[in-house]
């Protein structure tokens, strides 16, 4: 499935620092490195491969009872692709992920750059920015469900009564979409900011001293020193945000339940309705395998583009 990936180079996350470091830093070839990777392979095999095989099993069978199963071939796969609501949910989820990335990545980097660097306030800022990440996702949904309500929530009440805009996420599909998007930006931009902040902190001081001596402006320093050094952490941030927003489930489920209509029915909401709500494990298995493959392909594209772009 991933044939041809060996043509891509190794992951180089930083630009060459000093002139003498140019391209001599090729990795050593040593197959004994497998021993170092073995614990990871074993632990992930237990948590991922075995369950995945069970899902493959479901996807090609019609299960009437644990002892009564019929092999149905690829029928469930055809059905999953054919259903228009599945395709609509796919487009919707893709659109949502794209919007999430467009807003959160630049915003997160900007916050990281503006964050205080030393002293008590730097620590306090770090903790405050990280707080939204630490709330269980169902509680995030609950907070926003009430926060955005027009009658008793601070956010919804302010928009309606102070700004004078009619806003009701339970009736209007655009409002519902905006609510979910704003909630996601609120919830996840801190993740991008934290990663970017850690990346910025890893830039050696002499770089900035040199830039200062050269009289570089703040923007030039950012563009030519900070941004290139952030490539590694930004790759992580982009992929992580893409995957998690593409799988978003708990928060929209709590806030809007996928509605109004189908306005916020993302792929995973559709999927869990099938698997848990209706116990259609066959179609759900096939659907989730397709879903899984789509995410893999998209991530592979991202991954290749991002890790190659700096070469």
């Amino acid at each position: 499935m991933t044939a041809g990936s060996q043509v891509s180079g190794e992951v180089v996350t930083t630009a060459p620092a000093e002139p003498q470091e140019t391209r001599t830093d090729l990795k050593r070839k040593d197959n004994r490195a497998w021993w170092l990777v073995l614990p990871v392979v074993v632990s992930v095999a237990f948590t991922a491969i075995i369950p995945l095989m069970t899902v493959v099993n479901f996807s090609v069978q019609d299960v009437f009872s644990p002892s009564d199963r019929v092999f149905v071939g690829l029928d469930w796969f055809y059905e999953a692709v054919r259903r228009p609501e599945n395709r609509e949910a796919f487009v919707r989820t893709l659109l949502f992920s794209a919007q999430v990335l467009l807003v959160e990545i630049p915003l997160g980097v900007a916050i990281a750059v503006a964050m205080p660097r030393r002293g008590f306030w730097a620590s306090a800022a770090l903790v405050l920015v990280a707080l939204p990440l630490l709330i269980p996702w169902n509680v995030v949904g609950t907070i926003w469900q009430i926060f955005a309500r027009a009658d008793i929530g601070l956010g919804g009440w302010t928009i309606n009564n102070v700004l004078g805009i009619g806003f009701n996420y339970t009736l209007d599909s655009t409002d519902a979409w905006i609510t979910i998007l704003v909630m996601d930006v609120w919830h996840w931009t801190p993740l991008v900011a934290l990663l970017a902040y850690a990346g910025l902190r890893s830039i050696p001081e002499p770089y900035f001293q040199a830039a200062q001596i050269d009289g570089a402006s703040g923007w030039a320093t950012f563009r030519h020193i900070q941004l290139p050094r952030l490539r590694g952490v930004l790759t992580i941030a982009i992929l992580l945000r893409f995957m998690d927003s593409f799988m978003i489930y708990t928060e929209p489920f709590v806030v809007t339940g996928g509605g109004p209509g189908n306005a916020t029915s993302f792929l995973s909401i559709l999927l869990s309705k099938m698997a848990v709500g209706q116990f259609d494990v066959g179609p759900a298995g096939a659907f989730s395998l397709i879903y899984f493959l789509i995410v893999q392909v998209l991530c592979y594209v991202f991954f290749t583009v991002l890790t190659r772009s700096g070469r």
Partner: protein
Amino acid sequence: MARTTGRRLPWARTVFWLYVATLMLPLLWMFGMSIRPNEDILGSFSLIPQRVTFDNYVTFFTDVSWYSSYLNSIIYTSLNAVMSLIVALPAAYAFSRFRFAGDKHLFFWLLTNRMAPPAVFLLPFFQIYQSVGLFDTHLGVAIAHMLFNVPLAVWILEGFMSGIPREIDETAAIDGYSLPRFFIRIFLPMIRSAIGVTLFFCFMFSWVELLIARTITSVDAKPIAATMTRTVSAAGVDWALLATAGVLTIVPGAIVIWFVRNYIARGFALGRV
């Protein structure tokens, strides 16, 4: 030491604190909900609580199902963070320093496990954990959460490790350091910021995960997030108690990030060895 660390525009600090204030609004709102009785929340809109009560907090800390699930979450989350880190460290080093058969495929395959849709994994997880005796144990949840935390940990650590010049490894080898000794004495202190970030992210993702943790536990290792879903009763949602639990769930994570803040902030000792 120089005082620069990147120049910032004069208004950057103001904008930053404005952002933090916006970020805090829903959290302050939640705190406000936790210190007022339920009727006041649903009654009418009011910015400041009319009647302040700490009954919700008292309920939380006196009801065994609340505080024990709180402890459960802390136990399995810490266990998971430590286990994920230990497993991921050598692997990340291998990925960042060596080429070996199938390395790129393996690395990408690890990442793909971060995006397994949990909804359909639940049934297999349930069956497997019951048959191997890990059902409803802290260890069981910690292992299950390694599914998405180990790839993440490998990935973050690899990114940071690749930022450290390979010359350091070579210099240490010439000085007579063996790989394990070099790793522990020189390399680990150099990537302490990466370790801090990794521990925090493992803790965080395990702490907030609900679907898997709820499926493979019943009583003894039940997570706090699962207990929270119980607040929906015939009389409606107990918003105040839910908000109280929400406020308290932030506390352990805030403590964790306070402890790792220096490792996130201190940066690398690049070029100092």
